[in-house]
């Protein structure tokens, strides 16, 4: 197990290196905004722009820029400074991270619980009206994009614009202070972010359950005389395990930024940060958030794989 984890971590480092190289290449090859131009103000002079370029270091050869970036990253774990406002990228990411984590963890709890409960009931009452309604609406939520769903929910329920003003709406989180106020402000974003995931998880769990409930060991459980509830628990124990893998990866990806949800609800998280950085040609920040996303995905998938060995006794590394 120990060597397995170390091996995985070494691979992660290699992967991060590749990803930063790829991000750098993509940013420099594809047309994007010139950071110097964006920074130079409304009526830039050529000298002014040249001076800014020199200051940012974007006048140097590309390979040199990459080298110095990587040097900072590897030896100082320094993500560089933003081209736009000259703040330290690492500090910005760490500053934004709690908001993203708060958003994701709440949403993940909601979607995992909802997915498991709905999926289980649907599989047990397969073919019933409940099953049909649940799976039909699941399809609806999977198809509904977050920005659309976010706007619809805002239109319906937000306390400033909504038809039924029930919940804090757009911008409420940024304005809220303290844990409970923030949690209250996040109810709507949580729901919106969780909707599609809950639907996917419900469908996944339902199909896992249907498969597992046909297994021989479920028949054994029934032949022992166990009541229906315990038999379902036996099934759930097997059916839920693959869901944990998916959960880990989903959370990993979202830690890198729930871009759409954060944008719709003006939550100052990492997703919002990436979004702004892309709009402004802020390579350093883009690099930083991309690397952070990759790191989050690698680490959560490692955690999931290790966790899996505990969840499924047959798995050994």
């Amino acid at each position, binding site marked *: 197990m120990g060597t397995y984890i170390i091996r995985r971590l070494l691979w992660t480092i290699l992967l991060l290196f590749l990803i930063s190289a790829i991000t750098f290449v993509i940013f420099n090859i594809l047309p994007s905004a010139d950071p110097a131009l964006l920074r130079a103000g409304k009526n830039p002079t050529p000298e002014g722009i040249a001076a800014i370029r020199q200051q940012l270091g974007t006048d140097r050869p590309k390979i040199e820029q990459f080298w110095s970036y990587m040097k900072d990253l590897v030896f100082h774990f320094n993500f560089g400074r933003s081209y736009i406002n000259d703040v330290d990228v690492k500090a910005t990411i760490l500053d934004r991270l709690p908001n993203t984590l708060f958003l994701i963890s709440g949403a993940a709890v909601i979607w995992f619980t909802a997915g498991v409960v709905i999926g289980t009931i649907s599989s047990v009452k397969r073919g019933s009206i409940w099953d049909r309604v649940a799976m039909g609406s699941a399809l609806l939520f999977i198809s509904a994009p977050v920005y659309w769903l976010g706007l619809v929910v805002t239109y319906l329920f937000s306390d400033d614009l909504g038809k039924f003003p029930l919940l804090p709406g757009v911008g409420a989180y940024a304005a809220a202070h303290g844990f409970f106020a923030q949690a209250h402000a996040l109810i709507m974003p949580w729901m919106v972010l969780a909707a599609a995931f809950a639907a996917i998880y419900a469908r996944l769990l339902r199909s896992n359950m249907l498969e597992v409930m046909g*297994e*021989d*060991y479920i*028949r*054994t*459980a*029934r*032949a*022992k*005389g*166990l*009541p229906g509830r*315990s038999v379902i628990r*036996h099934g759930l*124990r*097997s059916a839920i*395990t693959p869901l944990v893998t998916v959960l880990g990866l989903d959370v990993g990806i979202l830690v890198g930024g729930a871009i759409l949800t954060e944008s719709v609800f003006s939550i100052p998280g990492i997703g919002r940060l990436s979004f702004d950085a892309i709009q402004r040609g802020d390579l350093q920040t883009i690099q930083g958030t991309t690397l952070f996303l990759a790191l989050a995905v690698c680490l959560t998938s490692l955690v999931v794989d290790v966790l899996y060995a505990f*969840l*499924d*006794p*047959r798995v050994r590394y």
Partner: protein
Amino acid sequence: MAPLLEVKDLTVRFTTEDGVVNAVDGVSYTVEPGRTLGIVGESGSGKSVSSLTVMGLTRARNAEITGEVLFDGKNLLEASEQEMRTVRGGPIAMIFQDPMSSLHPMYRIGRQLVEAVQMHQKVSKAAARDRAAEMLALVGIPDARRRLDSYPHEFSGGMRQRVMIAMGLCNNPRMLIADEPTTALDVTVQAQILELIRRLQSELDTAVILITHDLGVVAEVTDDIAVMYCGRIVERGPKDQIFAAPQHPYTWGLLKSIPRLDTPRDQPLVPIAGRPPSLINRPTGCHFHPRCPYVRPECVTVDPTLEPIPNDPTHVVRCLIPAGERKRIWADLKAGRTPAVAAVEAGITNDPEEASDGA
């Protein structure tokens, strides 16, 4: 002796998208305490469904179950699901074909056994664990107490089947239904498992229903044999009678298709021609007639009933061929003649082409 289990005219039908599946059709048998009934038949002959129905495990919206299953005089078909739960794993236990997949892969053996014990006995967890360890030791698992903490994948197939048997017997059942308990196991392990079942049966005076497609297995351990075909019992009787004087062409086919040490090596085995019929569109008349080498015109239209053979009320058969002729055909087959030859000798005027096709 009063029978422990009495199945009377049991019929199980499943309504599916493809049509009505007649899985079990009018099956009757009895099992006395301490005795063993072997139910023999091919896949899809209804042998598993009939025993799962005894356990109440085939109840479903699309299942139509009629007849009577009297266990100790009580009709289990009329019992509520709640009552059936107290029967399953308690007075009637069941073990299954594939020990590899019959234990929950993510729970420790001990937990699965304790669960079974506590389901039927009001005992503490510690007492249930003691019982579980005792049962594992009884079925011959060394170092039983420590093995309680093992997962199923840490056991071999034979050991897992022992665990299944321990689980089945942990509540002192009065009846054990073993559904192909040795099919997935090596031959040497098969013998051990059968020996184990037999030993435990004699120690605990348990009645056993042994479901199998393997006549070798029934020859080992059973007292009575019921041969099932297409959802019905086609022949039933004491084991010795079935082996010495089988009456049904299907039984003959089964007996002639097993290799024996005393037959010459160059003599080919005689398979039963054709495939088991669909349980949705069953053949008319005698359901075996499309595969029967001795088919007569009336077999196509007349559905035979289960009748006792002359001079032996315990041995019943479902066949239209007269008893005397059946005796002659079996004598011919025993002498090594092919079914085609035997059919001609018996004066059955079939198209010889068809008959030899059947051979």
